């Protein structure tokens, strides 16, 4: 066996101190397999070494939380013995290298995290960030990512119901592709990953293992595979057909009682899945790598342990149940192999060709993982001492028209029409609304889900931005009439070794935590993606929040589209006219400095309760939260969706119409008196803005606004 040189250690991304810890954990020098395993388990991605202590501050509990962070996905109670299971994950880097496959395998990976817990996936969401539309790579990346998300999700047959897409030059060299899946399972059919039962079989199912995505594989194969052919691509290719079979096969097996534990093979495949199962169960696992189904010849233990081939799962079965399980996987034409067993050694033991090729104590591998308290400097960044006033536009209507056709406010129809958003027949609010809503199959209940984040606020003020991201999902879920229950998240940041970036991270987490706590809206799962930097230029801090809420009766939901001529239009919440960091300031006035709007969490809670109450009572005919672009943009969106005009009878300056003050909703009703009485009883600020009617808004025809709004993206994508 080769000795481990400092170069090999460095190529595995381990620093000297970390390597010393490995020597200490093992009490000897690792072999290359063991080094590979330590390196992936102690990578930022798997060990959360920069983020762990901060994540630990997030609130994760509520009476309805069945399983918080720590498992493959979070689980919440949705009543009647049913649960919702969800998580979000990043696939940023792979999507930049190969947008189609990167995004596709991102969707595949997050689906597995959800169905590995026993859930049938019922909705996919995503949050995408691209560089400037003018950047030469943006079109190619956007078209590949969207095709990849659709290509995978459509084929597997899970509706993609909501998402978010933004452009900003900060993502020119690091796009973000975050994918979220929501599933449902019966509460007594939730599966966990803790291995148990000495001697129980460890079973591999799904696709065969190839040399996909092995990090540092160049080096390792030079060591072990002299006649290595062409340099191997590290890009994984997704196979959604196999994923669909895997979902059906796993759910069929899960209907019985033969599974002790189950875990998808995600990042660091066989390594992280087996280590996590052993660690959670406080047992050992012995794997005989000769039994691993292999797609290529002469695979080394190193390659097998580190391969990130897709569409694979690892399970521990009850003893003697192998044949029954095998029959199911045979029916679905999937590989099935007993590759090891649970042991009482508390070690991960690897056998290959009759030899022990790795033997690592699980405790140190997991518990001794680095856990850094990186220096951080939390401070609002963009509050310039001297900042200009944000001037008024020359003409309100024309400015609205210009904003509706700008890249970040334009319609995303070009994207979501490439996603099957209706498959499974339960989607009752399609993309384009405030939240995607899918019925809980066969019931009147429905789940509302959404992804949100406003990176420009997070950059200007990490704490407020962190709060805002949580609050915006809370609002979007409330706006359809659902009760927000819990969130998942995907925290995308630059290099945590820089104090200002770490400061953004810590600040955002602080804000998120405050919001989750105040709103009774805990974190049940999530993911962290750091080092999103190219040539020292970091992305904007982008803590994407995925929120999930529940409606008892989907028939009561409201949408954003204006329904009836003559209905009265109100805004709930005060408008202070906060223009700094607004779309108006950025797009129309080219002003990028100034503080982010503040989030009043007590008010968020009160407003949400009020809105949900009014929807429940049937008072509202349409509802929409006020977000990017402010009040006038929200009104235009409602008008376009309903194909109806609005007559405004409220006077306001540009701060009123374009300001991005938080916590506000547009409420539309046929019964203004009832709404006004309810608001005054609840002591909430409600302002009448006008009424539905005609075919224009501020002199702009709704058709014209719609055209500007709909045409930007198809036009952009058609150009070369």
């Amino acid at each position: 066996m080769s000795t481990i040189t400092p170069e090999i250690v460095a190529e595995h991304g381990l620093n000297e101190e970390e390597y010393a810890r490995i020597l200490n954990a093992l009490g000897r020098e690792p072999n290359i397999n063991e080094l590979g395993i330590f390196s992936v388990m102690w990578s930022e991605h798997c060990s959360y070494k920069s983020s762990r202590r901060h994540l630990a501050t997030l609130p994760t509990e509520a009476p309805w939380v069945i399983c918080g962070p720590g498992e493959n996905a979070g689980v919440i109670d949705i009543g009647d013995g049913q649960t919702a299971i969800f998580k979000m994950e990043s696939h940023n880097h792979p999507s930049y290298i190969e947008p189609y496959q990167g995004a596709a395998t991102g969707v595949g990976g997050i689906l597995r995290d959800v169905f590995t817990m026993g859930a049938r996936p019922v909705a996919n969401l995503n949050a995408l960030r691209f560089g400037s539309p003018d950047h030469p790579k943006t079109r190619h990346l956007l078209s590949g990512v969207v095709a990849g998300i659709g290509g995978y999700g459509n084929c597997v047959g899970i509706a993609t119901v909501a998402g978010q897409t933004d452009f900003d030059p900060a993502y020119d060299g690091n796009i973000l592709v975050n994918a979220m899946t929501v599933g449902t399972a019966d509460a007594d059919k939730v599966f966990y990953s803790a291995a148990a039962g000495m001697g129980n079989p460890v079973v591999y199912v799904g696709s065969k293992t190839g040399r996909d995505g092995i990090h540092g594989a160049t080096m390792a194969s030079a060591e072990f595979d002299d006649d290595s052919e062409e340099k191997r691509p590290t890009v994984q290719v997704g196979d959604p057909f196999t994923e669909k079979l895997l979902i059906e096969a796993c759910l069929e097996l899960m209907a019985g009682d033969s599974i002790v534990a189950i875990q998808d093979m995600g990042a660091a495949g066989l390594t992280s899945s087996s280590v996590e199962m052993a660690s959670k169960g406080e047992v050992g696992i012995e794997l005989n790598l000769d039994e691993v189904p292999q797609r290529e010849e002469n695979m080394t233990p190193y390659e097998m342990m580190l391969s990130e081939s897709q569409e694979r799962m690892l399970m521990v079965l009850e003893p003697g149940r192998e044949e029954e399980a095998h029959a199911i996987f045979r029916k679905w034409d999937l590989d099935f192999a007993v590759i090891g067993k649970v042991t009482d050694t508390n070690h991960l033991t690897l056998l290959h060709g009759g030899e022990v090729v790795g033997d690592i104590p699980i405790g140190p591998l997991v518990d001794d993982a680095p856990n850094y308290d990186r220096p951080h400097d939390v401070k609002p960044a963009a509050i310039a001492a001297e900042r200009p006033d944000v001037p008024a536009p020359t003409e309100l209507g024309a400015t609205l028209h210009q904003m509706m056709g700008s890249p970040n406010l334009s319609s995303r129809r070009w994207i979501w029409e490439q996603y099957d958003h209706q498959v499974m027949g339960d989607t009752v609010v399609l993309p384009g609304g405030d939240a995607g809503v899918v019925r809980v199959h066969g019931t009147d209940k429905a789940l509302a889900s959404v992804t949100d984040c406003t990176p420009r606020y997070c950059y200007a003020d990490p704490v407020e931005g962190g709060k805002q991201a949580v609050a915006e999902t809370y609002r979007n879920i409330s706006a359809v009439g659902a009760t927000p229950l819990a969130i998942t998240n995907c925290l995308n940041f630059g290099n945590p070794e820089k104090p200002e970036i770490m400061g953004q991270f810590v600040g955002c987490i602080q804000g998120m935590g405050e919001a989750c706590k105040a709103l009774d809206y805990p974190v049940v799962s999530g993911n962290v993606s750091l080092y999103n930097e190219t040539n020292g230029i970091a992305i904007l801090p982008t803590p994407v929040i995925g929120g999930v809420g529940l409606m008892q009766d989907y028939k009561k939901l409201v949408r954003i589209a204006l329904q009836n001529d003559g209905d009265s239009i109100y805004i709930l919440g005060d408008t202070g006219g906060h223009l700094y960091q607004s779309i108006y300031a950025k797009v129309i006035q080219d002003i990028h400095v100034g503080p982010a709007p503040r989030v009043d969490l007590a008010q968020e809670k009160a407003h949400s309760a009020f809105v949900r109450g009014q929807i429940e009572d049937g008072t509202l005919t349409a509802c929409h939260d006020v977000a990017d672009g402010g009040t006038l943009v929200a009104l235009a969106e409602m008008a376009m969706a309903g194909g109806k005009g609005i007559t405004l009878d409220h006077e306001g300056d540009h701060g009123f119409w374009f300001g991005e003050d938080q916590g506000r909703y547009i409420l539309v009703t046929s019964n203004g008196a009832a709404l006004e009485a309810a608001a005054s009883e609840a002591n909430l600020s409600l302002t009448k803005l006008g009424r539905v009617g005609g075919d224009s808004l501020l002199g702009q025809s709704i058709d014209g606004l719609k055209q500007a709004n709909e045409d930007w993206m198809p036009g952009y994508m058609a150009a070369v």
Partner: protein
Amino acid sequence: MKAKVHVTLKSGVLDPQGKAIQHTLSSLGFGGVNDVRQGKFIELDLEETNEDAARAALTDMCEKLLANTVIENYDIELIA
């Protein structure tokens, strides 16, 4: 000048389509098919008559559009 371009997956890259074809062939009773790989075959009709110039243009087309060089190889054949 006519050209034929073959675009194939690099070796080691998973080919879900090939795998599925192989599987269906075997269930149709075609035994003894060890492996199937599916690629693309693109025929182009170019105005260019100079062979070198045509090859250069085609290489450029492959790099820029016809092949995804992260996972695919391409091969250009010219027919006078």
